[in-house]
């Protein structure tokens, strides 16, 4: 206390405002909090949380996890069929976005997409047969995340689909993601018409061959610097990918032009890439997956390594709690709908693309790409404020991804579940909104948040695993 007597008293007032006013009136320094009970007003969970703040085991574990995340160097190393990347897909298995969910509980777009994939694989000849097969359990349905993969929207990956292979060269771990089909009637929004299947077949054959050559011939395959550059060009790498798609297009083109492939095939492949401003999204996701996978699996760490949605539930994982999912119903999306659509038409939040926010991009990098705030009636200043606010719930900021609007400070990265629950600030996600009926497509865009219940459950589990609560005995 000796040191306290020698310092200026600087008080944090937690509770009644009158006390803060009095301290200020008496000439003291005081900061008043806008406080409300954390952890959903669950006092026992709040006490567990309190004992996890400043716990050296958790701080050390977080530092290890965060360091691995910062040091990750995602590189695009290959483009192969899913079954060759993930041994589990040698069997009849289809991967989907978000946490585990039974077929009967799945939302429309995800069911539609799975049926489409079944037809694509040739496991059934008609839509009805495909549905029956899926409902009967004849095809294993598992989260992409269970196999180090990610997929946007319905996030469907089946054995014959080509996937990007991104490797974290610092640690050797790999992550996979499917190819972005474009906008409109596509599998990831649940469409499974012959036109969709035809496109998938082309992607799995001619496009696959061309792109594999392109990837294997890349002279510059490091994704982090490309993403960092795109952040300075108006992308946030979840909802805005145009700049990154353009930068990637340059590299792929040069690689293809240096190859011996048929000119027609090259042209068709590149035309496809050029026509899709969100082409890079799937690479952004794979890169992010490889970065947060590097941080995953550190016992005692409260760092969030997965955020994903399946159109019904939102699920998260922490580095220190292994494969456990912490789920809750997804929060509504605050946004604008395209003409003719309303909130009644909307599917719940869907897709693994929140892996970008998990890594400090997307909604966390909103300062780089303010356009989306217009969907919620905001200004560019609000976008910057949103990014800044996320700093309160992360372990730090990533110096590799700087944002000009934050004075070239790094984007907030490494969500600490303890801080989310303590501050009552939810991770913010920039997202598109899908129609709840399979196959209609995107009907709007906006901003949503991860549900607090996920973080409450995660903290409870981490606290249990560390036996943090002190006993009453002396």
């Amino acid at each position: 206390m000796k040191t306290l007597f020698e310092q200026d008293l600087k008080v944090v007032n937690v509770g009644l405002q009158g006390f803060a006013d009095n301290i200020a009136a008496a000439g003291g320094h005081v900061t008043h909090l806008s406080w409300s009970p954390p952890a959903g007003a669950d006092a026992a969970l709040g006490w567990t949380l309190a004992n996890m703040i400043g716990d050296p085991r958790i701080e050390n574990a977080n530092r290890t996890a965060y360091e691995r995340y910062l040091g990750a160097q995602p590189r695009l190393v290959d483009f192969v069929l899913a079954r060759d990347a993930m041994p589990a897909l040698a069997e009849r298995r289809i991967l989907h976005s978000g946490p585990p969910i039974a077929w009967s509980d799945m939302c429309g777009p995800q069911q539609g997409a799975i049926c489409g994939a079944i037809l694509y694989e040739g496991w059934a000849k008609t839509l009805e047969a495909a549905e029956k097969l899926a409902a009967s359990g004849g095809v294993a349905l598992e989260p992409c995340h269970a196999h180090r993969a990610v997929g946007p929207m319905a996030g469907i990956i089946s054995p014959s689909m080509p996937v990007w292979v991104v490797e974290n060269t610092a640690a050797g771990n790999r992550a996979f993601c499917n190819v972005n089909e474009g906008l409109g009637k596509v599998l990831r929004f649940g469409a499974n018409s012959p036109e969709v299947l035809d496109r998938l077949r082309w992607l799995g054959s001619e496009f696959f061959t061309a792109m594999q050559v392109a990837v294997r011939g890349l002279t510059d395959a490091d994704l982090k610097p490309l993403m960092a550059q795109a952040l300075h060009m108006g992308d946030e790498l979840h909802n805005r990918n145009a700049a990154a798609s353009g930068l990637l297009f340059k590299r792929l083109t040069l690689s293809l032009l240096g190859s011996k492939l048929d000119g027609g095939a090259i042209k068709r492949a590149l035309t496809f890439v050029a026509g899709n401003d969100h082409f890079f999204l799937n690479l952004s996701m794979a890169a992010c997956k490889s970065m947060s996978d590097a941080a995953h699996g550190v016992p005692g760490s409260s760092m969030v390594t997965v955020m994903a949605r399946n159109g019904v539930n939102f699920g998260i994982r922490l580095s220190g709690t292994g494969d456990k999912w912490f789920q809750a119903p997804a929060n509504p999306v605050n946004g604008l709908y395209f003409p003719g659509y309303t909130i009644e038409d909307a599917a719940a939040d869907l897709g693994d693309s929140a892996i970008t926010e998990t890594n400090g991009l997307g909604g966390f990098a909103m300062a780089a790409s303010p356009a989306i705030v217009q969907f919620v009636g905001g200004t560019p200043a609000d976008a910057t404020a949103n990014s800044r606010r996320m700093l309160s719930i992360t372990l730090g900021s990533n110096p590799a991804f700087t944002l000009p609007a934050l004075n070239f400070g790094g984007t907030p990265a490494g969500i600490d579940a303890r801080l989310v629950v303590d501050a009552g600030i939810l991770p913010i996600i920039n997202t598109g909104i899908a129609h709840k009926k399979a196959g209609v497509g995107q009907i709007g865009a906006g901003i949503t948040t991860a549900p607090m219940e996920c973080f409450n459950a995660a903290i409870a589990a981490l606290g249990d695993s560390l036996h943090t609560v002190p006993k009453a005995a002396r």
Partner: protein
Amino acid sequence: MSTRSRYYPNLYKDSVSLMTLSAKITAVSGLEAASVVMASATNVENLAQAGLGEFEVRPNDLVVAVSGSEEACVEALQKADELLTAKASGGGEEEAAAHAALTSIQMAVAQDPAHNFALISVPGDYAAAEAMKALRLGMHVMLFSDNVPPESELALKTYARDHDLMVMGPDCGTAIVNGVPLGFANVVRRGPIGVVGASGTGTQEVTVRIHQLGGGVSQALGTGGHDLSELIGGISMLYGLRALDADPATKVIVLVSKPPAPDIAARVLAIAEASAKPVVVIFLGGDPAMVTRNGVYGASYLAQAADMAVALSKGGEAAATPVSIANDMRRTLSGLARAMAPVQRHVRGIFSGGTFCFEAQLVHAAAGIRASSNTPTAGNRPLEDNWKSQENTIIDMGDDEFTQGRPHPMIDPSLRDARLRDEIADPTTAVVLFDVVLGYGASDDPIAKLLGVIGSGKAKASAAGRTVAFVGYVCGTDQDPQDRDQIVAGLKSAGVLVASSNAEAATWSAAIIAERQGVQS
């Protein structure tokens, strides 16, 4: 009669805001009852029992429930809605404010790592968690909140001790650290006397008196009311004592508490004795002789502790002089006693400070006068109904029963004023004894209604042939936000005998009662 309600998901308001809202809504005419509460399990159950409806809500939701005429209910709910959803001047400003709002102690530290102290006054269920976070972030803590589970208090204080930090509280209402008044505290000159107190108002009287005698206070640290229990073992008292012992700016130390358990008292006194600095100890209600030893001086009442500390700080002797009544005051008191009607025999002590209530009982008991109380000292009786005095009654209006869903009497004296009115009207009342507490946290105008209550009460009593004696103690300094001189003058002109200490006020009261009851003192 109708019952109507509305709930607001995830909207938190603190207890003061809830009470203010409640008061504003109740003002709607035609309304029988109104309740604005957070939807904790207890509150929801209470609402159901009071017939105000059943709710499917979560604890962080806010519920407004009203009953009365249909129109009144609708109007009341409308009013509540306006007050709860009131926006700041512009949408943009509010957004910016929301973005910048600090919602956790960690965020405050991240903004400025110089924050070294947390003052916590959230509901008891959440207070321990906030305190633990503050400690783990390297800050000292003052826990104003009460109803904190004892095991949590022990866990907090154990952690604090292991990390060279102090927890002041739970249930700590008063502190002055580095000259800054915290909680309910008075503006007091800086000086060489350090205080560690387990009682808020006890600390207030001691620090106020030190100032009035021309002395000064280096630090006034609180320990909370349960620190000296067997379970806690005086962790904070010992820490505070050691801290003041090591503080170069402190030359004399004062410890204020009720008597601790013997082994804990022994530990405290051993540390006090080992200190090179003189230590004045008042274990209120205990025998000062048990305390006195080498360099440790036992006091028997609060003002005496202050007197002794000031004397010691000037290098003089610490004489434990008892309260004596000057001759002319003795004549005044006697005169009042003789002017009373035969049936007037009882003292009615109505206190806002718990320790003042306690000390007053001790002073009366020492004069052979037993009383009933809601917080009886040894030998006194509990009241059958705390809202109704019986014979000699000395009560603490700051105790839980009177403060459920209501502000403390130091903040809002209306309940105290109402009780005083009842006491003056009671024909058996001889003396009305009360305290007026000033300083930060206390009401801006503590005697606004009181003078009127005294004036009209006196007039009615007079008309009925009774003379009632009024004795008061004003706990405040000339530097406090309220105007102490004006308050004392106002009381005196209303015929109140204003004493210079709580013990003196109780002594005057006891003298009158002794005469009225023919008791030999």
